[in-house]
């Protein structure tokens, strides 16, 4: 109860003009990055990461939350207007929204996307605040062997959700773990892999990896694809008038979608958010598929279904709230954006875990409030104020945009520690990430391996040490056994059932 009242106090913190300004600026930056194809909210927060060295933790977290919510919502803008999802999580919205756009109902589709995002985002934020104290209580019950099995579960899920590229996912994750082993050992004051240099004794900071993997590699990818032009698509989209009054979805259409669709999609999205590595795309897809499965008008799907837009958007925005739960309680990010937000926490000296709510709940409360306010107030407000010009976002010349991103990324790497070495590391990781992305290796797996690697090693060694080296401790400890069984269930569901389903489908064909 006390924690809930602290969370309520987070809204008062947002009344501080400086904090409010960070939230609004974050939302606008997130909207821009989310709407721009190729740019994502992960990149926006990655660019923010060095700046968090120079600002307080509360505005940094408030800004991260509003960027996250805005980025998840604004992918629907270009998905609807020009059929290019600003973010992968808006794929389903592109199918339905652009079909409506082509029928002259673009503003209506944007309105439904915003309403779905608003409801889903708000429910996700409320569930986050409501269940955080409970999640903290539960996480206190997990002991060292259980913590190892939980981290193992997270890593296994991250690797296997990358379907069709499991070996590459494993390579990327192991690379992250290897990078994390550079520096002082997790349990003993012994340097590892410093190759005789002083610079590597302290290990590699998360910041150059994030900047390299998400910002520098993006500039390199865009340099490779610089010719691609959206000119014709944009001209067509600009010709369709978008008026403010059309953004408000009629009550009859909302009734047709059904309150249950919004609620069900939000709960699904929140639940998927809790799963490590699942992210907004899976939340949107599962919510969309479930809504279609129970729809009275499934034939409308694929041809401009408003229910499809509402379900997908409610699902991916509710995911934002869910993704914070494992990140804050166990240090296990639910999606790439929260992985970078974890970096913001660590840079500011906050250690994820159940104790976070005891001592530092007042630092987290404004972030939760920012999630809720961004969903409830800023999504509709931004749509109303800037909606008619949304289509122009993608008109910004690529050369100018990516040159600016390169400067922010590199100067940002420098300002974090006033070190040219950090800039060099960012470029090295950027080149590595460029080849990884080009060849289908997940950079998110690399980052999560880097974040979770030290925990995996620490819990494994501690658990073995406490049990005199007996590995059976992972089977005799109930919490550990639970997560190992959960891992086996996920492996079965994702790998073997999918294969069986594939075989059945091909036999029917």
């Amino acid at each position, binding site marked *: 109860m006390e924690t809930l009242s602290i969370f309520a106090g987070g809204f008062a913190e947002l009344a501080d003009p400086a904090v409010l300004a960070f939230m609004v600026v974050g939302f606008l930056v997130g909207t821009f990055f989310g709407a721009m194809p190729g740019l994502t909210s992960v990149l926006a927060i990655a660019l923010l990461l060095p700046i968090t060295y120079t600002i307080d933790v509360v505005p940094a977290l408030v800004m991260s939350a509003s960027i996250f919510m805005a980025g998840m919502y604004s992918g629907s803008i270009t998905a609807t207007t020009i059929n290019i999802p600003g973010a992968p999580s808006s794929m389903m919205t592109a199918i339905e929204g652009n079909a409506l756009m082509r029928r002259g109902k673009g503003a209506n589709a944007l309105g439904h996307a915003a309403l779905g995002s608003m409801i889903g985002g708000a429910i996700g934020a409320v569930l986050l605040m409501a269940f955080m104290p409970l999640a903290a209580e539960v996480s206190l019950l997990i002991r060292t062997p259980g913590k190892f099995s939980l981290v193992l579960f997270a890593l296994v899920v991250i690797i296997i959700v990358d379907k069709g590229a499991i070996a590459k996912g494993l390579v990327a994750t192991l*690379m992250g773990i290897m990078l994390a082993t550079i520096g002082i050992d997790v349990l*003993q004051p*012994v340097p590892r892999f410093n190759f005789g240099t002083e610079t590597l004794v302290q290990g590699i900071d998360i910041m150059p990896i994030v900047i390299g993997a998400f910002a520098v590699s993006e500039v*390199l990818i865009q340099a490779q694809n610089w010719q691609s032009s959206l000119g014709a698509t944009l001209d067509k989209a600009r010709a369709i008038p978008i008026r403010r009054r059309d953004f408000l979805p009629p009550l009859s259409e909302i009734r047709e979608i059904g309150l249950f669709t919004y609620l069900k999609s939000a709960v699904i999205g929140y639940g998927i958010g809790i799963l490590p590595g699942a992210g907004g795309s899976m939340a949107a897809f599962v919510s969309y598929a479930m809504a279609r499965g129970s729809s009275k008008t499934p034939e409308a799907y694929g041809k401009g279904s408003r229910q499809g837009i509402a379900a997908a958007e409610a699902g991916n925005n509710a995911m934002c709230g869910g993704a914070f739960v494992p990140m804050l309680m166990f240090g296990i990010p639910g999606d790439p954006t929260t992985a970078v937000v974890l970096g913001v926490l660590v840079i500011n000296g906050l250690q994820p875990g159940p104790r976070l709510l005891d001592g530092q709940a007042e630092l987290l409360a404004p972030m939760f409030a920012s999630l809720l306010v961004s969903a409830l107030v800023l999504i509709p407000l931004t749509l109303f104020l800037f909606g008619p010009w949304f289509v122009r976002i993608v008109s910004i010349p690529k050369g100018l945009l990516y040159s600016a991103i390169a*400067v922010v990324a590199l100067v940002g790497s*420098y300002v974090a520690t006033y070190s*040219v070495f950090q800039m060099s590391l960012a*470029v090295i990781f950027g080149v590595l990430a460029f080849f990884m992305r080009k060849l289908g290796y997940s950079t998110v797996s690399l980052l999560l391996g880097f974040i979770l690697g030290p925990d995996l090693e620490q819990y494994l060694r501690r658990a073995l040490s406490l049990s005199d080296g007996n590995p059976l401790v992972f089977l005799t400890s109930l919490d550990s056994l639970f997560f190992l069984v959960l891992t086996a269930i996920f492996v079965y569901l994702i790998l073997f059932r999918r294969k069986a389903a594939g075989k059945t489908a091909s036999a029917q064909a």
Partner: protein
Amino acid sequence: MSGKAGILRLGVAFPLVLLVLTTVYFAAAFDIRAQFTPEGEMGPQHIPMLVSGLMYAALLTVLVQELRRPATLADTDEHADLLRPALVVVATAAYIWLFRPLGYALSTALFVTSLFVVFRFQTGRPVRMALSVVAVVAAFYGLFSGIFGVRLPTLIEGLL
């Protein structure tokens, strides 16, 4: 395109490079000296060795998959595609090298100009390009130095 993919393809070369790096890592793991590790327990060198083993297995799987994959049209064009990213990397390396000696303003102006050329932004309009360069340099100087109070290197510091 038909036939198996060549060994010089990026898809094969990349895991081969990782294989070499893993070998360096694996060899270095043997040099880690634990302060104390009771018998039967894991020391600082054990996880790196275990990870190296898993990495070898994963990389060999990727290599087999890549070598079995038929070559595609994209495979033949991939080296030509790398020219622009390579130019960006060279420009970035030069930027990092010159950042302190030339200071933020001059080095960033040169870096942004080179990126504009790579991205072909305003290349036919030198005045507009120069104005855009100044705008980018000034905007981020204002952001980092003005708003966040970060001290950026200057040309005078570099000369001293």
